[in-house]
């Protein structure tokens, strides 16, 4: 049975959005916590200065740099989340595949880090585009990534690379040295796959999955 974009969003959108939102808010909390401690440290030094301890300019400079670093980090996180929030704006558009991979990885960075898995991203030499919904593309990439990393051992490196295959079809390849789950049925992704006229191909060794776009 074919599902419309609206049906899939209604069914799976809130869960994906909620999961990413929780992860991102956790990271922003960490940025705020670091800024809070550094502001507190500066306040401690000011109090010491008021009591006659000569202020250490280098120390202040270091504290300011740490706060600035966290502001940049939080700003990057919020920018990613803003882009994600707008990913549902258009039902179909031309999408830069590597940009989508980068955003999906940024959004789920904390979840991936907690699994102690390293994900690398090798971009195609030339930009590769697919047509469809940005939200579904992010959802599809994340669903595959979550499925692959479900049973991967800590310390595993997974590479995602974009390319054009021998049939000139745009392809996203997920590959690691260790085999991953042999059952690759993704009910949620199957429906998003339909929308991109895409298919998932798992190799015999079960350590590589290709997402091949027909659209």
């Amino acid at each position, binding site marked *: 049975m074919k599902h419309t974009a609206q049906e899939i969003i209604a069914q799976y959108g809130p869960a994906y959005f909620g999961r990413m939102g*929780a992860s991102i*808010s*956790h*990271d922003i*909390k*960490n940025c*705020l*916590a*670091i*800024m*809070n*401690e*550094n502001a*507190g*440290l500066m306040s*401690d030094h000011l109090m*010491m200065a008021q009591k006659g301890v000569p202020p250490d300019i280098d120390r202040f400079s270091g504290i300011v740099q*740490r706060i600035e*670093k*966290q502001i940049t980090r939080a700003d990057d996180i919020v920018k990613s989340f803003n882009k994600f929030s707008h990913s549902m704006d258009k039902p179909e558009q031309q999408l830069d595949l590597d940009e989508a991979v980068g955003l999906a990885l940024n959004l789920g960075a*904390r979840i991936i*880090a*907690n*699994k*102690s898995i390293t994900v690398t991203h090798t971009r195609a030499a030339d930009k590769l585009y697919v047509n469809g919904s940005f939200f579904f593309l992010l959802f599809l990439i994340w669903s595959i990534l979550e499925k692959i990393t479900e049973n991967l051992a*800590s310390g595993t490196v997974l590479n995602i690379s974009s390319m054009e295959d021998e049939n000139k079809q745009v392809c996203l390849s997920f590959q690691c040295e260790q085999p991953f789950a042999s059952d690759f049925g993704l009910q949620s992704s199957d429906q998003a796959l339909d929308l991109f006229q895409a298919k998932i191909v798992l190799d015999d060794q079960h350590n590589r999955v290709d997402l091949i776009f027909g659209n």
Partner: protein
Amino acid sequence: MHILLVDDEKELVSTLAERLGYRGIDAHWAATPNDAISMLSNQRYDIAVLDVQMPDMNGFELKEQMEVICPELKFIFMTGHGSEECYYEGCSHTGEAFYLVKPVEIDSLIEKLNKVMLDGGKR
């Protein structure tokens, strides 16, 4: 009072340790659970303040390993994760009084450290 702070956000725990030091509390920090276990094997601590979500091992799993090394060690959890599920899990390990949500106010952390030392905390 000897405190071990553990959080994968190195800049958070190092700054917190420095600020506690200015208040007369001997605080050390580790940015990975493995470093924390190694430090606990070499030095005595009264209280461990653990982040809940860390790569490799979460704070609750780390608590179990630390208790094997130092059964009398007491715990406080801190988290940036505001979910109810996480809150109740944290409370079940330490009691509501010893669970902090980031950003942590240093005065409330010190208050909880003193309370854990007096009450012993829920084990």
